C-alpha cells in the first residue's frame, strides 16, 4: 500500500524546486526597485532587436542613472517586433514605450502610420545632419555597416573578398545570410542592393543559384560561420568583431563595392504612458555615456565626438551604399514578397 510519507516528500521536493526558481526571479525584481530616488520613475517597456546581452548592459547603465525606472525588454528580430506591434494593435493596445530597431525605413513606416512621438533629444549635437529625421520622430544611435564575415580556417585571402565572391561558383553552398522576413538589417540590405546598378535584385538571384542558406537572424549567421559549417556570411559588422574577440575563428570584411549601413534608430511610441522615462532613455542612448557603452560592445558610434572601437576603421572611411529612404519604405513589402517567392520563406 501507499506510504503517506512518500507523497509528502515528493510534494516537498516539488515545492523546493519551485521555490528555488521563484527565489531567483524575486531577487532580480527587488534589485530593480531599490536604489536612490530620482524624479523619473515607473515602468518602461522597450521593444528591441539588439542582442540580449547588449541591451541588458544598456539597461543596466540606464538603471544606474534612473534607479526608479523599471525597464522591461522584449527582444526579437526587427520584422517580428513589427509583426508583434501589428498584433497588439488588433488587441487594442501597443505594449511598447520605446522602440529600438534596426533601420530607418522601419521607423519611416511607423511614422506614416502615426505611431511615433515627436521628440528632439538634446544629445543629437554630435550626429551628422543627413542621418537625422527631419520630423524628429526617431534618432539614429549607431553606424552598423553590413559586410561579409568569413571563417579564417577556410578562407585565407581576405583582401579578395567582395560581394561577388559569394556568387562565384567555386563558393557554391558556402554562404549563409539572414532573412529579410526576420532581420531588419537584412531587409535594409535587400532594399539598398536593389537600388544599386552593379548589384541589384540580380545579385540575390545569383546567390540563390549559388545555394545560399537563409537563416533567421544575424546571430545565427555568425554561429554557422564560426562553426565552419559555412565559409562566408552576410552580417552586421559588430557581431563578427565580437565573435572574433571571444575567440571564434572569424574575421570581418568591409566589401570594396560598398556597404549598406543601418543606424539602429530609437523612437518613442505615441501612446506611451511614461513619456518622461522614454525621453530619458532616448537621451541616455545618445549621450556620451551611452555611446561609450555602445563602443565597448563593438558598435561604431553615431556621435562623431566619441571614438570608434580600437582597431576599427572609423565610419567616415567606409564606402556607404545609399538609396532614397522614401523609396526603401515603399519597396519593402514588395522586397519581402519577392524574397519569399525566390527563397520560399
Amino acid at each position, binding site marked *: 500500500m501507499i506510504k503517506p510519507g512518500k507523497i509528502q516528500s515528493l510534494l516537498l521536493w516539488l515545492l523546493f524546486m519551485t521555490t528555488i526558481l521563484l527565489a531567483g526571479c524575486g531577487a532580480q525584481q527587488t534589485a530593480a526597485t531599490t536604489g536612490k530616488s530620482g524624479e523619473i520613475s515607473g515602468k518602461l517597456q522597450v521593444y528591441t532587436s539588439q542582442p*540580449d546581452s547588449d541591451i541588458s548592459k544598456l539597461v543596466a547603465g540606464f538603471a544606474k542613472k534612473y534607479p526608479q525606472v523599471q525597464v522591461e525588454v522584449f527582444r526579437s*528580430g526587427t520584422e517580428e517586433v513589427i509583426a508583434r506591434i501589428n498584433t497588439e494593435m488588433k488587441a*487594442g493596445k501597443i505594449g511598447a514605450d520605446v522602440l529600438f530597431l534596426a533601420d530607418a525605413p522601419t521607423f519611416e513606416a511607423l511614422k506614416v502610420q502615426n505611431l511615433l512621438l515627436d521628440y528632439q533629444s538634446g544629445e543629437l549635437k554630435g550626429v551628422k545632419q543627413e542621418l537625422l529625421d527631419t520630423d524628429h520622430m526617431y534618432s539614429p544611435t549607431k553606424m552598423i555597416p553590413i559586410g561579409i564575415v568569413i571563417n579564417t580556417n577556410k578562407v585565407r585571402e581576405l583582401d579578395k573578398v567582395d560581394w561577388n565572391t559569394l556568387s562565384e561558383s567555386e563558393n557554391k553552398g558556402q554562404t549563409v545570410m539572414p532573412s529579410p*522576413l526576420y532581420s531588419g538589417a537584412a531587409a535594409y540590405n535587400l532594399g539598398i542592393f536593389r537600388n544599386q546598378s552593379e548589384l541589384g535584385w540580380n545579385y540575390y538571384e545569383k546567390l540563390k543559384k549559388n545555394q545560399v542558406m*537563409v537563416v533567421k537572424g544575424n546571430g545565427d549567421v555568425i554561429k554557422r560561420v564560426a562553426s565552419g559549417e559555412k565559409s562566408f556570411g552576410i552580417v552586421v559588422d559588430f557581431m563578427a568583431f565580437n565573435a572574433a574577440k571571444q575567440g571564434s575563428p572569424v574575421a570581418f570584411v568591409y566589401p570594396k563595392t560598398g556597404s549598406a549601413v543601418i543606424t539602429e534608430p530609437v523612437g518613442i511610441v505615441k501612446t506611451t504612458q511614461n513619456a518622461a522615462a522614454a525621453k530619458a532613455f532616448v537621451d541616455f542612448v545618445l549621450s556620451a555615456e551611452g555611446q561609450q557603452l555602445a563602443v565597448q560592445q563593438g558598435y561604431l558610434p553615431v556621435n562623431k565626438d566619441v571614438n570608434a572601437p580600437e582597431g576599427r576603421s572609423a565610419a567616415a572611411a567606409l564606402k556607404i551604399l545609399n538609396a532614397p529612404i522614401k523609396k526603401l519604405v515603399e519597396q519593402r513589402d514588395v522586397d519581402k514578397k519577392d524574397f519569399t517567392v525566390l527563397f520560399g*520563406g
Partner: protein
Amino acid sequence: MKRIASWCLFILPILFIIYPLWNLLTVSLGVSTMQQGISLTAYGQLLQDPQLPTVIQNTLYIAVVSTIASLFMGAMAAILTEKTDIPGRQGWRLVFILPVLLPSYVISIAWQHWAGPVGLVNGWLQHLLGRTIWNFAGIHEIVIVMAISHMPIAYLLVRSAINAIPGHLEDAARIAGARPVIVFTSVVLPLTVPALANAALLCFASALDNFGIPAFIGIPSGITVLSTLIYQKVIGLGNGQFEQAAALAVVTGLLSMIPVYFQGKIFHGPKYSREEGNREKRIYLMGKWKWLLVLLIGIWQGVTVIGPCIAMLLLSLAPAYGVPLTLSNLTFAHYISLWTDTPVVAAGLKNSLLLALISTVVVLLFAWPLARRIVLAPSSLITFLDGIAAVPYCLPGMVVGLAVLLTWIHPIPGTSFSLYGGMTILLLAYIPRFYTFGIRTWTTAWARFSLHMEEAGHVAGAGPMTVTRRITLPMFREEALGGGTLIFLLAFTELTLSSLLAGSQFSTIGVIVFSMETAGRALESAALGTVLTLLTLGLSAGVCKYLLDEKNSEEKETKI
C-alpha cells in the same frame, strides 16, 4: 447547485472549445471583415501561393517517413524489453520512454550539436578520416529527430499489447509442436497488429502537430511545414495575414482528421479478460545472444538520445562557438549569463511554472465531474462531451493556438482591455488542450475502483464530500500523480501554443529558448536546454521511482 454544475459541464466546452474553432472557420471565410456573407478569398489566395504544394508535400513526407521509423524502433524496443530475458529490463524500459519526457525542441537542439553538419560526430569523423561523411541538414534531420521523439508512443502501445497476450495462447502453439521462433512470428506478432495500427495513427497525428522540430531545424534550412507556415504567417509577416493563416489552419485541421477517420475502421483486436486463464506471460530465452542485444541497444540509445544530450552539455561549456572544448577552457559563463544577461529567462521559467501548476490543477479539477459521469452515468450527451474534450488535443496545436488567438485577442467591447499579452489567454489555450488528459486520468482511476467502497462510506454516515476526500481521492493518488505530472510537464515545456499566444510582457520558457536559438545564441540555448533536460528528467524520475516503488513489480513470467 447540482444543476449549475451540470450546466457548466455543458457550457464551458462550448465557450472554450467549440466557439474558438467556429470563430477560426468564420475568420477564414472572411465573415469578420465587414463584407457581408461568406467569401473564399483567403482560400483562393492560399491556392495561388506557390509555396503551398511544397509545404504540404514536406509535411506529409515527414509525417509518413517518421511514423514508419518510429513504429519500427518502438516495436523492436517493446519486443526486446517484454519478450526477451534481456538483462536490466526495468532500466531499459525507462530509457526507451526517455525521449517522450524531453520537449522536442530540446531534442532538436541536442541532435544538431550531435549529428548536425558541424556536430560532434562529424567533428570526430573529420578528425579521423579527414572528411565528413554525411550532412544531416534539412528534411532528413527533421525526420530522424521526429522519429526519435515519437518512438515512445509506439513503444508504449506495442508494449501493452504484448503484455495483454495471455500465455496460454503461446502454450497451445508450443504443445502443437511449434518452435519458439514460429510461436513468436505466428502468435505474438499478429496479435500486435492492432496496436501497431493505432500507434501509426498517433505518430502521424503527432508529426502533423509538432512545431518544435520543424521550427528549430526546418526554419533555418528553409524547410517549411504546415505548422511553421501558420506561425510565419501570423508572427513573421505580420499585417493582414490573419485570414490566410486561418484558412491554412482550417486546411491543416482537415488534414489531421485523416487519422481520426481511419481510427474508426481499425480492427481493435480481441479483448482478453485479465481475470481468467493463465496471467503469466511467456518470454524467450536469448542465451548468449542477450549480451549482444544489450550491446546493440546500448549503442542505439547512445547514438539517438544520450549522445545528443552530451553534445549539448559539452557545447554549453565551451567558451565560444567554433572553439574546441578542452579541460582548461571549460566555462560555466553561459549558465551564468542566462541569469545575469537575460532577465527574460528567469521570468520565463517562473511564468511557465505558474502556467503549468494552474493548468494541472484546473484540468484535474474540471475533469473530475465529467469523468465521474462518463464512468458512473454514461449517456449519449456525456459521450459527446467526452469527444468534444478530445478535440483540442487531436487538432494540431498551431490550429488550436490560432483559434484561441483570433477569438480572445480583440479588446473586451467597451474597454481597451484585451486578454492578449497576459497569462489568461495562454490558460484559455492550455486548459482546453490538456483537458482530455485530466479526463483520461480520472476514468482510468475509476475503472479499477469498485463503487462499493463509496457506498460503504455512505452507509457509515459520511456525506458526499467526506467520501470523496477520505475514500475516493486517497485511492486515486497514483493516477492523479501520474496524470498530473504528465499535464504539468506538457504545459511547462509547451512551445506551439505559446509561440502564437505569448505576449511581449509574458513569455514562456519554450518561446524564450526558441528566440535565443533564432538569435544565434547557440551556447546559451544549449545551456538552457541542458537545464530544462535536468529539470524534466529530475521531476519525472522522482515520480517514476515513487510509482514503481508502489507497484513493486508484481508480474510473473515463464520462460520458453
